[in-house]
């Protein structure tokens, strides 16, 4: 084991003078969360445990061929007194063994489910992070659009106000023009009257 492998652990920062186990464990948890592990490699030693399908509960192995036929005949013959036989032979070693095997298989299934939950948790967490990021960017965009709309609204309002002012100004100017035209007309008539009086 050597220092040459230390770079593998560079993600975990450790103050060797003041080791803080809780901090190291938090870093380990973060590291695991950031590297979701998807597939479960199979272990040759215990294939049922590591396969992606949950192992089915173990069934007790039964005899085959002639043995099975004989067993079936015997079972039919002894069917009426089966409960008594069962009662007399309790606890049956084979039954206990089967029960233990079933419990063991159930344990394996639970372990597998637990591992799947772990994996799914990481995947769900990653997806949630992505959705969160997308939501944040959409929200930022929406905020920008809202501000832009507000500006447009203000601008429109101001334009309407200015146009109204201009319209009033225009009306005033028109009125003034008309008055001036009349004054001019009056002055023209007066000029002609005076000219006829002076030169006429």
């Amino acid at each position, binding site marked *: 084991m050597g220092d040459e*492998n230390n770079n593998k*652990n560079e993600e975990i920062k450790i103050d060797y003078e003041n080791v803080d186990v809780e901090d190291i464990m938090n870093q380990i948890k973060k590291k695991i969360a950031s590297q979701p592990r998807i597939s479960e490699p199979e272990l040759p030693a215990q294939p049922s*445990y590591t396969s992606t399908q949950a192992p089915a509960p173990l069934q007790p192995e039964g005899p085959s061929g002639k043995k099975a036929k004989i067993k079936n005949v015997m079972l039919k013959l002894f069917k009426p007194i089966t409960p008594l036989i069962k009662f007399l032979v309790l606890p049956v070693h084979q039954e206990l063994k089967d029960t233990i095997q079933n419990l063991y298989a159930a344990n394996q299934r639970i372990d597998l489910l637990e591992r799947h939950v772990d994996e799914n948790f990481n995947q769900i967490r990653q997806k949630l992070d992505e959705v969160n990021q997308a939501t944040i960017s959409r929200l930022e965009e929406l905020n920008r659009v809202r501000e832009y709309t507000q500006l447009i609204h203000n601008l429109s309002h101001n334009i309407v106000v200015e146009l109204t002012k201009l319209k009033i100004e225009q009306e005033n100017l028109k009125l003034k023009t008309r008055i001036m035209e009349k004054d001019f007309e009056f002055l023209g008539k007066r000029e002609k009257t005076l000219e006829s009086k002076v030169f006429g």
Partner: protein
Amino acid sequence: MKLAFVVQRYGLEINGGAELHCRWVVEHMKKFCDVEVLTTQAYDYITWKNHFPEGEEMVNGICVRRFPVIRSRDPERFGRIQNHIVDNEHTFDEELKWLEEEGPLVPALIDYIKDHENDYDYFLFFSYRYYHSYWGINALPHKSILVPTAEHDSIIHLSLFKDLFRKPRAFIYNSVEEKNRINALFQNQDILGDVVGVGTEIHDAFFPDDFRQKYGINGDYVIYIGRIDENKGCAQLFQYFQRFKQEKASDVKLVLIGSSKLNIPAHPDIIHLGFLSEEDKFSGLDGALMLMMPSFYESLSMVTLEAWAMGKPVLANGQCEVLKGQCKRSNAGLYYRSYFEFEEALRLLLHTPKLRDAMGKNGKEFFQQHYTWDVIENKYLSILDQLEKEK
């Protein structure tokens, strides 16, 4: 002062957690007080069958009084009753029936305690869940000190223990987690109690090279020491270790020391050595890179303390609150709750000798601070002093 230590089994051959814990404490308290042990004739913790002779016996200079178990435990019947108690609504009488079935059923021991109340100043009961503790504490609550050694199991919620945890004069806890859990469940913070645990003794000299040669172990290895049992998390450890080996192509070996009640996978790098002498055990631990502690339920892991005393880091099962708490407080071990955490933590420890050294140093300091015998003895004496002052 005369103390009686009351425990379910006692003897040099008995290596069970609470029983060994009791024996070590007794042998150390002998320096300060007059001590006796009140126990059963049982050797086997599953059936409690009488094995040792009845009466007085001297064990390492300690007077041990043994009382007969009047009915052995039938594991099948006990299992049925326990399942009923745990899974269904039930009456108080059914709980008492469960306690009788669990045993060890030693009414003579309880009678002795009642009859000899004045011969002893205090009775220290080990393991809350057994017959001797329940009826012993109920008989003499004013002279009782309880060392609960409570693991994280559902039995503690039985109603018969509600009163029990409010009766003794004092509690001696194994860990901070155990104290917190019991205080939270029974609201007994007002009763004198301290986290003490147990000390351990480490051999002066280790011979890791001889160990390797003797058992033919080459290369780096991690070690598990203890009973190889499903309840101790060994099945999960084997699964995780094999998967780690396959995925990471690591050369590391897993050495197992202890008797096995589980099928050990036939893997070239999983080496089971069986039950070894203390000398070989410590030499093996000294040569290991770290101790693996996969147990789900521990009230105090002595072997973890031994590893820390020897400056070895620990990789523990984080589902055990006590182990996790100890790793955090000592900063001398990592823990895992899933395969991925196991993989990362093991890889980190294997590939970072500097971290192993730093954690080993922390473990030694933690051990020196809390678990040397001087510290443990002083804590026991302090509790007894406080009780004497309250008299």
